[in-house]
């Protein structure tokens, strides 16, 4: 609701100044310039690194199969029956965990990377399933399937968007102005498709690979709180101190029986309280 109110206030302001322009779109351009001006450059000679591995102990849940038979264009792209990428464990290592610096950078600001982050829709799945992006950095959303996808973000701190790409090869570019971990992304045409975007105000974030490993590079030396975030298992934090040109370790473990911080997540859009079986 706060987002709706801010939209509303922006609109009133816009009408008050009597213009029909884009006042509501506090676009990324301005953010880019401000950050470029104020950016402290981290000397590569002293830059520190934090790396680690996220492991999973216990029995990993069976991957949920996805029935794509209704969309042959996508089903044909999968030689193996596709499964949900949610809890992806191999040899005890957990993939698709978003790891980022949650505290310790103070008021520092960082130049926005000019490289776009790509979110690809291929075979009716998002690639990658979890991705990190810096505020103001461009997100290129690509459709590699010759079928309609819509891209519906359920963000709360950023303006959500709900756009569609009806053809293969289409690309749309968006960016986020506010740090928000995490923004769920879904396709309403193919209800099984989901992705998560972690938006941070700095470039120090990573997503664990299939072997559970991650690396965050180029950090100024200092003391940090590192947070690991998983969509169903939850979030954990750890303090790490790194000196000049040092490499700190941050290994996280998720246990199937332990409870972690619940992940705050926007509710899916349900207008009705009726549900099944009423009446």
């Amino acid at each position, binding site marked *: 609701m706060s987002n709706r109110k801010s939209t509303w206030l922006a609109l009133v302001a816009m009408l008050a100044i009597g213009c029909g322009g884009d006042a509501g779109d506090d676009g990324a351009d301005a953010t880019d310039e401000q950050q470029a001006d104020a950016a402290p450059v981290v000397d590569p000679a002293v830059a520190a690194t934090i790396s680690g591995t996220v492991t999973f102990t216990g029995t990993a849940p069976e991957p949920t199969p996805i*029935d794509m038979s*209704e969309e042959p264009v996508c089903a044909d792209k999968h030689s193996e029956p596709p499964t949900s990428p949610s809890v992806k464990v191999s040899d005890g290592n957990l993939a698709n965990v978003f790891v980022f610096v949650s505290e310790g950078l103070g008021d520092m600001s960082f130049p926005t990377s000019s490289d776009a982050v790509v979110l690809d829709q291929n075979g009716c799945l998002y690639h990658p399933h979890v991705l990190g992006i810096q505020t103001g950095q461009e997100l290129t959303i690509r459709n590699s399937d010759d079928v*309609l996808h*819509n891209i519906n973000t359920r963000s709360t701190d950023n303006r959500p968007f*709900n*756009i*569609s790409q009806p053809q293969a090869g289409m690309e749309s570019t968006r960016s986020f102005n506010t740090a928000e971990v995490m923004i769920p992304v879904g396709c*309403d*045409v193919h*209800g099984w498709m989901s992705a998560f975007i972690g938006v941070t105000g700095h470039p120090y974030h990573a997503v664990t690979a299939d072997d559970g490993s991650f690396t965050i590079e180029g950090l100024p030396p200092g003391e940090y709180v590192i947070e690991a975030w998983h969509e169903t298992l939850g979030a954990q934090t750890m303090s790490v101190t790194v000196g000049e040109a040092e490499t700190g370790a941050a290994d996280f473990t998720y246990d199937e029986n332990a409870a972690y911080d619940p992940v705050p997540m926007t509710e899916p*859009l*349900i*207008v*009705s*309280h*009726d*549900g*099944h*079986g*009423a*009446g």
Partner: protein
Amino acid sequence: MDWSLPLNISTQGVQIDNLFWLIFWLTAIAFVLVEVGVLWFLWRYRAREGHRARYTHGHLGAEIVWTAVPALTMIFLGIYSGRIWAEIRSPDSFPEDALTIDVTAKQFEWNVTYPGADRELGNDDDFTIRNRLEFPANEPIVVRLHSEDVIHSFFIPELRVKQDAVPGMAIPIWFEATEAGEYQIACAELCGNGHYSMRASVIIHEPDAYERWYDEQTGAAQTAAAD
């Protein structure tokens, strides 16, 4: 496109189609009467040298005729349509003990919930299939329509069925297919950017084939084999 209604496979569709063609022929008569009349008058009464228009303000008898004839036709159509409407939509006309299926629409999919092995909806053994509606032919089916987000409309052209699914309401409709086949549910109410892509398959089985399918789904097949 061939200016015809598509194949009809429902019991109600017969009445709907007959009414459609009845109205078609009635309106065709009026259409020819008016269009030919207008064209004929345009030619017959075109301005000519030395010809002056008739000075008249009306004719009560003629006006009564062309008030009464359309009025009677409309009343007839109203009564006739009303009877068919009641047979299809009146709460009294719903078949008792029909197979009842819940269909929940959401952007942009149709989730179909079937009763589980106890053949009753609304408890834990119900099972839900995305974008596929399967039911037997030659048996009345009641579909209860729900929506989670915005208004959608449940449209199966070959069954001559259309009903909006409204969030916050559970709207029942019923129909009976006369033969097996594969068709589609289409969404007929604008529901967002994926509206044009909101379709689901409809598989109408022969009754015994439906039973086999249903047993497979509920797992009753294994139980039966074990006995």
